[in-house]
């Protein structure tokens, strides 16, 4: 039994067991317990990788410093890049499950769903965790595809959990759009496999990322170029890149709030992770062709468009969860732009941004869930005076939004600053676009935030039972990351940067 097996088996078994537990209270606790074990296993896995990494130097382009292994004949690969996302996934999974317990109890109490649907919810929650962890750790691009599609399938019923016409519509959109996107990604995967077959003799290894990466220089550039376009559009749909983002605000706003937190905080990351892994392959293949930076340019283009468009759309939102889902699109766009820019500094910034965005955004969604319960609506117009009714929620929302908007002491500021610096170095003209985009997004968030937090609360607005510990932990971490990135974490991200770009920053 190694750490990886534990990481993967815990949520899978958890999902199976939760499928049998009907009563609400024990299911909530069990869900929490499974998440605790998952986090423990993830940390164990991270520790193992850290040990390997200390023993072997991760030189440029080398794929050492990773743990490769097989479970049930499948190739897995854990290196600094994905193990940090594994730990992040498990961590956010845990804090969200802490929040989800009282939240779902409130939902049950108000009679919006029955115990059977709650059972579905818990089971699918862990199944979703499982698919994401598989997508992160597998070495096989085909299995990664299956897992990402599996993540859609696991969450689609959760989006329609409330069975309102809006929820059903959102879920249908989510299902269809992501299904289409992911189908295009499969075509890209087939093309990649085709390119691999020309150079790799063992057909079974033809989809293994490690093998492909080692042979990237020999992959046919014309095919890889085409493959990447399909893969980017496919996985980009999941990342929520404009113009394939249509599903995202709907799915986030209509599903239960814990779902929004994990979708925004984790699923988008996993999809972006897939894109980055594939970009590494394509960069390796195109290095001697006429357009060596094609993948990077594509990412920059999609990223920048998503960033700008989402920032503008922030202004038009009336639903609080929709607003924050646009904020997610905006930040995913920024990260995509960063990865597209390439270079150690930008990549480091993007990795850090992935981390702080996940933490902040899930904290915000948790707070928003409570806020919506206080006001009894998700409509921004009707959420008023949170800070008076329930100061903890009001302050959390205020601090969370300040953090996500990139106020200085928080980690988001740090990563955005790094990204801006990198942009100024390599593509100075884009700095202007980025800065104006940040300003637009900032204005969009704050014009809505102010009345919600400080406005006059309507008559009879009461506080709800809320567990603010996850929010506090997340925001504290984000603050800490903004003030001083701990050495081990910096080293960790730096190793991931080294893996992606071939050069380490520090």
């Amino acid at each position: 039994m190694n750490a990886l097996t534990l990481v993967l088996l815990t949520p899978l078994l958890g999902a199976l067991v939760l499928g049998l537990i009907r009563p609400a209270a024990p299911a909530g606790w069990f869900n929490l317990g499974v998440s605790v074990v998952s986090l423990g296993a993830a940390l164990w896995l991270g520790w193992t990788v850290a040990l390997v990494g200390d023993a072997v130097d991760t030189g440029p382009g080398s794929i050492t410093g990773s743990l490769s292994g097989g479970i049930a004949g499948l190739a897995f690969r854990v290196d600094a890049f994905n193990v940090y996302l594994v730990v992040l996934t498990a961590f956010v999974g845990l804090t969200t499950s802490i929040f989800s317990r009282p939240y779902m109890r409130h939902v049950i109490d108000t009679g919006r769903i029955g115990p059977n649907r709650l059972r579905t919810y818990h089971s699918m929650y862990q199944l979703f965790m499982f698919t994401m962890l598989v997508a992160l750790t597998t070495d096989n691009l085909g299995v990664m595809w299956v897992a990402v599609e599996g993540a859609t399938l696991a969450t689609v019923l959760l989006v329609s959990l409330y069975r309102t016409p809006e929820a059903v519509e959102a879920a249908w959109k989510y299902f269809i759009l992501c299904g289409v996107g992911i189908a295009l990604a499969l075509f890209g995967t087939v093309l990649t496999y085709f390119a691999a077959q020309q150079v790799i003799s063992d057909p079974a290894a033809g989809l293994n990322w490690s093998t492909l990466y080692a042979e990237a220089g020999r992959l046919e550039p014309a095919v890889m170029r085409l493959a990447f376009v399909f893969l980017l559009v496919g996985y980009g749909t999941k990342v929520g890149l404009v113009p394939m983002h249509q599903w995202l605000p709907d799915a986030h706003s209509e599903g239960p709030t814990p779902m929004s937190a994990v979708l925004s905080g984790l699923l988008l990351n996993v999809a972006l992770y897939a894109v980055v892994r594939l970009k590494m392959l394509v960069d390796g293949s195109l290095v001697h062709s006429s357009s060596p930076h094609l993948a990077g340019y594509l990412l920059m283009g999609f990223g920048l468009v998503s960033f700008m468009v989402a920032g503008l759309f922030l202004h038009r939102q009336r639903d609080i969860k929709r607003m924050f889902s646009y904020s997610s699109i905006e930040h995913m766009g920024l990260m995509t732009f960063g990865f597209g820019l390439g270079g150690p500094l930008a990549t480091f910034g993007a990795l850090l941004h992935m981390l702080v965005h996940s933490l902040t955004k899930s904290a915000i969604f948790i707070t928003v869930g409570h806020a919506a319960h206080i006001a009894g609506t998700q409509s921004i117009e009707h959420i008023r005076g949170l800070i008076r009714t329930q100061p903890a929620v009001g302050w959390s929302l205020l601090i969370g939004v300040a953090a996500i908007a990139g106020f200085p002491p928080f980690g988001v500021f740090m990563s955005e600053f790094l990204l801006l610096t990198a942009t100024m170095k390599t593509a100075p003209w884009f700095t202007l676009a980025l800065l104006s985009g940040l300003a637009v997004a900032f204005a969009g968030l704050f014009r809505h935030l102010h009345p919600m937090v400080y406005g006059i609360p309507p008559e009879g607005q009461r506080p709800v039972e809320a567990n603010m510990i996850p929010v506090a932990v997340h925001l504290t971490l984000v603050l800490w990351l903004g003030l001083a990135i701990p050495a081990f974490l910096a080293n960790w991200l730096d190793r991931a940067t080294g893996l992606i770009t071939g050069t380490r920053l520090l």
Partner: protein
Amino acid sequence: MNMTTLPLLQQLVLVLAAIVLFLSFVLLAQTRLISAIHAFAWQGALVAAVTSVVAATGQVPHLYFSAALTLALKAILIPWMLHRLVRRLQLERHTESLQSPTLVTMAAVALVIFSYWLVLPMIQAELTFTRNIVAVSLAVVLIGLLMMVFRTQAVAQVLGFMSMENGLFLAAVSATGGMPLVVELGVAFDVLVAMVLFGVFFLQIRESIDSLDVDRLNRLSETPGETRTEGQ
């Protein structure tokens, strides 16, 4: 490539692939749901046939398994499930009026040409006969996509989705002689689960808008007119 030098079995593969493409057009233009489901079943059966012929010509034994899997899933199980759903939802006589069918068909033809142009560099890379089918399979994928855009009936959209999967499978078989078995199984499993979920959604949509015309799913827009409550 010279067509005249190909053995008969390989010519058969080309013919079958071409008919798969034709069935995509039929699916796109067919307004009666039941007939569309039948066309889809035939498409699945033909993809399975292509797979088994490729298995026979290329001596790839594991493709026989894929062929059987495709036949069971795409030609029998999924059409049967759709058929049952359509009967359960009493949509047997449902016909959908298409807006400007000629335009859609021409768009599909343009997609075929586009796919060919797109995969041209890839075809040039190697001269095995099946490479040519990649363009056809991409066209099937894109026509499935077009179908999902232009058809507003939920069942028709699902058919478009599933025919995209057919195209993907055809691509995998023709370009690479089939993906590794574990991936193929995973994909088949995902498709099956997706089909079950689609069935669940038909019922949910029907319950919520009393129709399966997804054009009427239009409550969510950028600036909703009325504010929605969390329903408490």
